[in-house]
């Protein structure tokens, strides 16, 4: 006999063990596919990969057109729920969302066109007393009118319109003027029912306007009873 009985048993056991391990790994892999596939970035200032090595682009007076995220009209929309705050909104399934663990503002970003999600925040909760206590307890519109002052790239207000979405949230649609006198972005500020220290803020980023409008319309605030 080329192989004695003891060795044969060891060989069978080894093959059996390998097969079991591979099977277990496959089960684990299938299970991982069932788990949420959000992009999760670590909180705070840390490393996410090398910076682009492209030569810096000198500032110009016009903004380069950027790619815009859009989705087919028949695409399935799913609901995202805030981790800390009881907000929710609907978004196209193909819009890849990113959240930040332990983020006090409970913000949601989206990952698209290789833009770092940290500069692509779709929604966050602004706590007025943290940002600027001067506006605590004052009408939210005062806060919205002055919001641009917290950002060095903005210098004024173009227009602010009050509106109400289908879920009866009262909001303000604001367009701010940037340092090169352009108005590329739309910012939405929703009042939070029963809490005038919080504001739900959304920014359109590089979302197709119709997609962004539909997201804005779907925003809900449903505190636990």
């Amino acid at each position, binding site marked *: 006999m080329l192989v004695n009985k003891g060795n044969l048993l060891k060989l069978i056991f080894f093959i059996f*063990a390998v097969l079991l391990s591979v099977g277990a790994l496959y089960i684990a892999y299938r299970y*991982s596919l069932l788990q*949420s*596939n959000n*992009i999760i970035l670590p909180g705070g200032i840390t490393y996410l990969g090398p910076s682009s090595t492209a030569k810096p682009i000198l500032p110009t007076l016009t903004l380069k057109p950027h790619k815009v995220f859009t989705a087919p009209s028949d695409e399935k929309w799913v609901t995202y729920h805030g981790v800390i705050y009881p907000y929710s909104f609907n978004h196209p399934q193909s819009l890849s969302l990113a959240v930040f663990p332990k983020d006090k503002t409970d913000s949601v970003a989206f990952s698209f066109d290789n833009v770092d999600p940290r500069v692509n925040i779709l929604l966050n909760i602004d706590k007025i007393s943290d940002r600027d206590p001067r506006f605590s307890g004052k009408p939210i519109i005062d806060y919205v009118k002055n919001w641009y002052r917290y950002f060095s790239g903005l210098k004024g207000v173009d227009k602010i319109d009050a509106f109400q979405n289908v879920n009866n949230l009262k909001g303000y649609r604001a367009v701010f003027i940037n340092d090169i006198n352009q108005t590329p972005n739309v910012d939405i500020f929703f009042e939070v029912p029963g809490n005038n220290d919080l504001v739900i803020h959304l920014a359109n980023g590089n979302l197709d306007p119709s997609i962004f409008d539909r997201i804005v319309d779907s925003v809900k605030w449903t505190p636990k009873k």
Partner: protein
Amino acid sequence: MSAFSILIVVGLVIRLMLIGNTGFLADVSFWKSWGLAAIDHGIVWTSFNTNINYPPGFIYVLWIMGKLYSLFGNPHDFNSYWRENNFAFLLVSKSIAIAADVFIAWLIYFFFSQKDRLKKLGVTFPLSPNFPLILSAVFFLNPVVIIDSALWGQVESFGIMFTLLAILLLFYKRPYLATFIFITGTLMKLQNIIYLPIYFIFIYRSFGLKTLIKSLSVSAITFVLVCLPFVLAGDLSQVLFLMTINSDYFPWLSLNAHNLWWIVSGAKGLNVTDKITVLGMTNAKTAGLIIFSSFYFLSCLLLYLKTNVRNFFLSLILGIFAFFLFTTQSHERYSYPLVVLMLFLYPFLNLEYGKFATRFVNLKSYLKNFFGSADYFWLLYILASILIFFNIHFGLVYNYPQNGWGFLSQITTPQLTIVSAYFHIVLFFAFFVFVCSQISPLFLIIPFALTAIGLTLTNSSLLLRQNVSLTAFKPIIANQDFSILQVNKSVNSYSGWKSWNRLSNNYFYYRFGFGAHAKSNLTFDINKKFKRFTADIGIDTEAGTQASVVFQIFGDEKKLFESEKMGKFDFPKHVEIDISGVKYLELILDDGGDGINNDHADWLNPVLYP
């Protein structure tokens, strides 16, 4: 093929099946970031350019994770690498701890198969042939071990592996190699530092002073070797930074650890600062350190007075358990080493283990001998496993409810977590049965006496009705719009020792006080123990000419004082106010309505009068 091989395969298959669970997302995403930085830019760069709060040795492990991941995928592919269900990264990161689980299981099996050596080390009761296998199985199939490595994805077993290996090498008379491994382990997982005094006491008592001194030299050499990249880069101070960064990193009563402070906080350990005053003028953090040190002293004393293998393991258990139970800022996973160390302790206890069927024939005699029996030990072991598993599972589902076990999550209530904390404390004192059989029960008075002395000393000013500088208190809130609060230094001192400046106003110098910056809020829990508060207030000499602030003092949210707007050239103003019955004293700096530029303002010589 042996029964041990079957055990390893079974345990491994269970773990592999759990790898797909995304575990503790924050830990995993931080490891991705730091591992990527390590492979892109090296160890030292990672420590400077990321928010890593692990000891320097662990960056090697993260580097390995990054390199291993590179075999399966591209870590620079943003959209796949950062997905929470990135299976390849889950596999790589959890493999480190799973490999450590396997190694410890083997270590238990190997060590407890050495009958002659065990006899020499003090095991007198006959060990059955299956004993090493049973002990190894109890560890390897323990749900605590499985949840930590395969579900959560943490590396407790990786850390304790170094300590265990070092300890066993001491039993094989290899103290220098043991010390090399022990110190390496401490630089990989900082919690190992808790064992350090006990470890060196054992070396001193077992091998003598000469070996102790040589071992300490080996420690220094190991430290330099592990930190060699930092030494070569001339940045050894960064090592110190990494070793100390976790002090006050999460300044809360309990980081989900079911311990004394979990009870004090009413199951809200993560929401209550550990700077609250709990006794007289002692804050929770200081009180916790005093209680921990007192019990740690007893564990050192036990080993020093009766040095043997049994007491070595018992001291390590008491030391780590006291650390988990009594210090604030304790994590839920800090009690994990118990489930390993208890298994190493067990054979050296030489406990009676009669036949199961005859146990209850003579109930009176059984109960009389219960505390010296193996049944008592295994009761403690099962209780420890249940409590630690429940606590670790709680920590996981508190943050990521979707990643725990549904049934257990459903029955976990705040009340149950407090019950768990009480049981942890009962378990701790249950170990003293094993202490009392070694040293006089009178020694048990020592930790209580030390705690009483420590708490009395920290309250001595109050007891003697003496004035107390407010700088003796740590603020429970310390916010300011520029820099960070400086105690007994001006605010510009924040940038490092080369910029340290004494507190002063127009070149009037002060020894004590707070260097702050508008807008700021300093709140102190003075616990209604004082009647009067005095201080000088003013702009610090280092401030620019545009500085202007308004000083305000609140007691329990009621305004007690407001200064006029003070500028750079105003001399210090003296404040004296009544604070009888005040629990929370708030010192506020407002910017005077003209922005915060140059507003470096000081609370000078702030004194509380009882």
